[in-house]
């Protein structure tokens, strides 16, 4: 998985948990919270979807790594690539 693919995965999840948000102009370097109406509960849902869909665990201590799309990609891409093939 590339970092861009990883960003797409995260955006797809956000689109599902926050269908009322316009995601067409999300800036990858800006904190998601600052450009979308996402609260801490929504981040909990992003973490849950990562686990449910991809079996990918994000420990609570690492939640800050999900702040922006760029930081998501930095943090998650290696984790995705380390997953056993399905």
């Amino acid at each position: 998985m590339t970092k861009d693919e990883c960003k797409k995965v995260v955006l797809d999840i956000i689109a599902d948990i926050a269908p009322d948000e316009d995601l067409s102009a999300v800036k990858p370097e800006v904190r998601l919270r600052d450009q979308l109406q996402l609260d801490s509960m929504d981040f909990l849902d992003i973490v849950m979807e990562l686990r449910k869909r991809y079996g990918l665990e994000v420990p609570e201590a690492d939640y800050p790594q999900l702040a922006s799309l760029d930081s998501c990609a930095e943090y998650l891409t290696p984790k995705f690539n380390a997953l056993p093939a399905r």
Partner: protein
Amino acid sequence: MNSRRHYDVAVIGAGLSGLAAGIRAAHFGKSVCIFERHNAPGGLNGFYSLGGRKFDAGLHAVTNFVPPGVKGTPLGRLVRQLRLDRDQLALREQKGSRVVFGPAGEAALRFTNDVAVLESEVARLFPAQIDGFRRLTELVRATPFEPDAPLVPAREVVGRHITDPLCAEMLLCPLMFYGSPNEGDFSFGQMAVLFQAIYLEGFARPAEGIRLILRLLLEKYREAGGERRMKCGVRQIVAEGDRAAMLILDDGSEVTADHVLSSIGGPETAALIAPPAAAGEAFGHQPPGVISYVETMAVFDRQPAAFGWDDTIVFFNDSDRLHYERPAGAVDPRSGVICFPNNFQFPPEEVPEEGMMRVTCLANYDAWVPLAEDAYSAQKADWFARVQASARRFLAPVDAAAFAAATRASDMFTPRTITRFTGHRNGAIYGAPGKSFRGLTPLRNLYLCGTDQGLLGIVGSMLSGITMANQRVLAPV
């Protein structure tokens, strides 16, 4: 042999908060079971059938209505967290409501889902109060719900901005009737939540009423893999040390759970804890609420508008001072709430065929409970007529004989009915006066959600279940 079932999460009560909590937990992959003593879900927002007709037992209107696309509001959060499709809720906005005070409703404030209407009504009726009203509105907007905020009496804060007592009473009346568990006054924090929910957001309703919302929640819960046991309440919460170690169900079977969420009320939950000492002094001895209602329902053969009754909801009080307290007699007919469920902006195909008028008045549980069946029926019939007559003072006059001829069915529930179907002591529809906003109890894996966690109304109760599941079960901090 150990035949006990174990769940990650056990939820007591299949009302709106219990179902919402169950959905969240199940959605996160937890094994969940909801235990409900009755055969139907809904709790304080239930429904029943009588003579082939369906009646809502709680819901007049869903508060917190905002149009689609308005962000950062309770309704939006709720839809998101439960993964509901907003369109499925089929919420249709109110037509318009009134607060009327005085023997024949001489002082009247109209309001809709556009707060500008209320603002212009305040300016018209109380010109000297309009600046204060605007300041109060700003203050409410700037007051986020804060669980640990000190409790400040609402009347004191409102009085700083609204100096005309009649204006203050009229503004507080709907807020108290739609959510205050306290007699006389409530906290400013609670008032701000209700002010936001009712005046700044607004009223809406699905034509089908509460059954539609419950059905959506049940579907979500089932899809997420949640279990429920109906007609099987929890009889005892067995404490070991500071943990809820086991639940004993009505049928005698035993269940264990890592987390227990109770939606049945604070005092009601405390009473289940064994040994009682484990409930602790404060939690174990909290007083139940005393605010209870009777509600009359009249079903007739035409739309209410045909009688000249165009309001969605009318909050009435026949003097200039509201007496929001447990009445000395069985019912206090001086004030109350009239709801016409027909009078929402339904598209033609959704308009209910029959008209309905519901009237709610404060009632005293103790005056209803000891009565034998005959006396209870007689008292109901007597108060039905008096409640209707009281409410009709504030509506366009309709000849009594004509109304009787148009009437097809009627029913009434009392504080006794509320306790029988919800288990809430004293028929207290808004629960105990002391709320547990953190949802914590003396047992570290037992939490409250719903009425006594402190969020009220249809949207509030679901948010309560969501919030408690999130904070206590899914992301414990």
